């Protein structure tokens, strides 16, 4: 197999792999929402409800503060 052929196979393989990864990620986003394990859209509220006095959407339990 010469270098040109090798490049062609590698090109084909990586194209398939990247398309697979992209669609897997989209699938992962949607399936996690459908199964109820994650609600991505609620994070949109982080920009709107951003007063320091307002309740965090998800509290950071590992919060460490320098005194």
């Amino acid at each position: 197999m010469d270098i040109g052929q090798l490049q062609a196979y590698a090109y084909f393989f990586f194209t398939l792999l990247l398309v697979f990864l992209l669609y897997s990620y989209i699938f992962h986003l949607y399936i996690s929402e459908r199964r109820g394990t994650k609600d991505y859209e609620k994070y949109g509220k982080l920009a709107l409800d951003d007063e320091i006095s307002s309740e965090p959407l998800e509290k950071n339990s590992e919060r460490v503060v320098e005194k």
Partner: protein
Amino acid sequence: MGEQSQQTAPIQYDYTVAKMFLVSTILFGIIGMGIGVFIAFELAFPELNNLFGEFGTFSRLRPIHTNGVAFGFTLSGIFATWYYVGQRVLKVSMAESKFLMTVGKLHFWLYFITILLAVVTLLSGLTTSKEYAELEWPLDILVVGFMVLWGISIFGLIGIRRERTLYISIWYYIAAFVAISMLYVFNNMELPTYFVTGMGSIMHSVSWYAGTNDALVQWWYGHNAVAFVFTTPIIAIIYYFLPKESGQAVYSYKLSLLSFWGLMFVYLWAGGHHLIYSTVPDWMQTMGSVFSVVLILPSWGSAINMLLTMKGEWNQLQSNPLIKFMVLASTFYMLSTLEGPIQAIKSVNALAHFTDWIPGHVHDGTLGWVGFMIIAGIYHMTPRVFKKEIYSKKLIEIQFWLQTTGIVLYFSSMWIAGITQGMMWRAVDEYGNLSYSFIDTVEVLHPYYTMRAIGGAFYLVGLFIWAYNIYKTFKCGRELSDKEINVNASPMAS
């Protein structure tokens, strides 16, 4: 240590550092764009080059313009919004950590001194001659210094956050930090010649890379300076300020995540399009082209997400001038991210490369997208950080229309100039001789160069209006109560 107990006085966001960067955004914006307009007039009327001896020539001033707007105006705007948005979406105040407050102030002063020194050294003719990386080695060390401080500030604030999830804007700021740091260090690997030879200027250095390798690293850096100074952090800005100002949550959070990873993966490979038909290997040129075209997808993913955020609320476009700025900014983002890939196609590049179409493309992105978003972001911040009502809505409207006209004049003249130039350079007679000499193209381009300079001047006047409006807000804007500040649409007097 666990959750810090609430003190008797309620904690408030501390905008001290945000305010400092707000001022430097305006200052460097005026300097950088003022010089830009001046050198645009120099191109149209070359005798202006002789006004100030060596200090007034196009070649001396052009790096001050590019560095001034990219690393002065834009970086200041990015830092100003970071010290504002970062606290708010993480729900933590800078006042809660003396350490982070000190880091923030140090970050500002080191940055401010570096940019001032950049202006002085470039004006003195001290340059590495690498485009957008002209600063000499001592300044590069200072740049690394303030970037490290920014990194400490980002991850420090994340470390003490109350909100567990990092809002999408934070991801974009992190990406900007990581990528700028990496790119800057690698492209500016240089050897100060004095320490090797024991003679010459102590400021002088040579790149570690040579020839084609230097060009490759340079444009890997150069194009990603566009990606991670002019795109990624500006997306961070719009993802916060447009939803906040309009009161509408981002249209699709999932799309914002998908676009983020898409952009991160694709952008870093696109720099090769700057070297089409050069000495770099052909496959690299093709790769640069292909990745540039693919780049349309994640770019438009973000832009469409922003426009759809306004779904059902388009009436705000009429009533709120800041929404006008932001919607037009995302539209210009779409325009320039379509235009860029078109220019990266090899056959188009054969015509477009080295012509004025390229600065035309750069400026509809920088003036329309970057400039408008920073202007709108700073306007949104102003009443919150100074607790005063914006001085004049009418002035914002005037600024918007003046600057929009300026941008249209800029890019339309450069489209015509660029394509005219490209066609004239390629034209041959029936014997294969060039039909035009270089000076023929220069003469033909004169009216378009004048038009471009006037367009730039319009934009600059708008910038002065912006500065004046913010100054008047600070000086004599109506004081606002907390209740009046904690709203979505920015309070502004008519």
